């Protein structure tokens, strides 16, 4: 049974505006590192944000871990979101908080409001955060403020925060497009290694086709809100590419 199943997903931001996603169908398996590629404006970011309902879909269905995402109330949605780790294009760290607190904030879904006021996270959480920070190579930066780090380091904090959630699914929204090529590759391979280590399926929206073919086992091609390709990386041909990026070629 697939981890994530999306049927006829549709999104429009306002009632009269154009549809950003126009009826998408796909599913993600437990072993997938699945890339969503497509030209800018194709709806990649919107798609990723629909999965954890940061963007509300206007139609279709999303079934995650066997539950209907769109039927959840606010409380259950939060419970669901804490099982979904998300890594963002611009890291989305709280700049004025320390690296440690940023990583710990990944546990907020499990922490009561009162505890979170005093930032009193359980001991296990702190230990886990330290381990993860060591794992992403930031042991020396634990107490620095997030905005004191370089781009690559900040994205590593973002990765640690997402893994803090002990996620059952990782959503990646262009995790490398704010980084330079060398660091992009490092970050991607770190994510791949960690995803394997923790056995988490990944749905990754990515601009760089090169990176997608290198790191992902499956590719979904998106153009103007419609799926143009879906299959294992090896089966993607030049013709598929041209179809997906037809708009940009023109």
């Amino acid at each position: 049974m697939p981890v994530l199943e999306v049927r006829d997903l549709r999104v429009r931001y306002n009632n009269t505006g154009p549809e950003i996603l126009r009826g998408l169908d796909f599913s993600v398996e437990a072993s997938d590192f699945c890339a969503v590629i497509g030209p800018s404006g194709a709806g990649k970011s919107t798609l990723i944000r629909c999965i954890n309902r940061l963007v509300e879909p206007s139609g279709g269905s999303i079934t995650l871990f066997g539950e209907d995402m769109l039927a959840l109330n606010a409380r259950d949605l939060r419970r669901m979101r804490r099982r979904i780790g998300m890594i963002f294009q611009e890291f989305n760290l709280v700049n004025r908080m320390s690296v440690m607190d940023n990583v710990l904030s990944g546990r907020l879904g499990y922490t009561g409001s009162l505890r979170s006021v005093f930032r009193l996270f359980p001991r296990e959480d702190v230990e886990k955060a330290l381990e993860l920070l060591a794992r992403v190579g930031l042991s020396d930066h634990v107490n620095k403020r997030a905005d004191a780090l370089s781009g690559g380091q900040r994205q590593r904090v973002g990765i640690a925060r997402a893994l803090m959630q002990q996620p059952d699914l990782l959503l990646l929204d262009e995790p490398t497009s704010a980084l330079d090529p060398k660091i992009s590759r490092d970050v991607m391979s770190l994510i791949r290694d960690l995803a394997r280590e923790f056995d988490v399926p990944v749905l990754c929206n990515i601009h760089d086709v090169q990176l997608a073919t290198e790191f992902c086992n499956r590719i979904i091609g998106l153009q103007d809100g419609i799926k143009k390709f879906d299959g294992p990386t090896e089966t993607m041909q030049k013709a598929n590419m041209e179809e997906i990026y037809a708009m940009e070629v023109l």
Partner: protein
Amino acid sequence: MSSQDMNTPRPAAPPQWTRFPFPETLIRYSALLGVLVFLAWSVHFLNLDLQRVLGAFPRLGAILADRYFPPELGFILDQRFLMSVLNTIQMSILGGAFGVLLAIPLAWFASHNVTLHRWIFYPFGRLSIMGCRAIHETIWTILFVTVIGFGMFAGVLALTMFCIGFAGKLFSDEIEAIDMKPVEALRSTGAGPLQVFVFGVLPQVKIAFVGISIYTWDVAFRAATVVGFFGGGGMGWYLQRATYELQSTRVAAILLTIIALVSISEVVSGWLRQRLAGERLA
């Protein structure tokens, strides 16, 4: 899926981290304790009854509803009161205009980067602006009333002092933030200090100054509503009379007028400043 385990092989020495490192935490908590002690001491020193603090707002509400309601709206249309409203506006315009005009040279003196002389004019400018700011407009009013007697003149002078302090500070902040390159260029051509100010500084701050001046008028108008309370003329005088004669419904009517006028003045000055900002971009 839920069986995943974070227990990756641990590093030899498990890393340690605590939110409360020793010296920093001690300092922080001592500071916090100090603040709390100060607060407790103040409450004790001022003989405050905390229950009364909490009860104050409901009580104020009750009193407003009870004594001040309904406002005697008919009084607003009284010829003399309307005249005093007009006078209040006039006072605020004059006080604002005089204040801004005097504040410009003082701000020039009080700006460290372009002042005439760092040891004479700079402290003079700073001190004058600070003195004007330090003394509250009501105190200025009382002082001027004792010197020149009751009436709007005292009010205008008080507002002038207030505006010097208010606008002067903002002006000099603005001047200190200018681009010094044109100033240096002018100085290198042998221009005198006044020429440097007029050709190097003023063009850079002109639009900001106009914005600040409008804002100053807005604030001066708020102050003008009460200078009359201490004999400075304008509608504040009616407020004082109504207050001391315990004509609460009339006080309510005057207060409503003040709130309405201040809101209007805020909208007007906001609109003017917005236009100005638009022009700055154009």
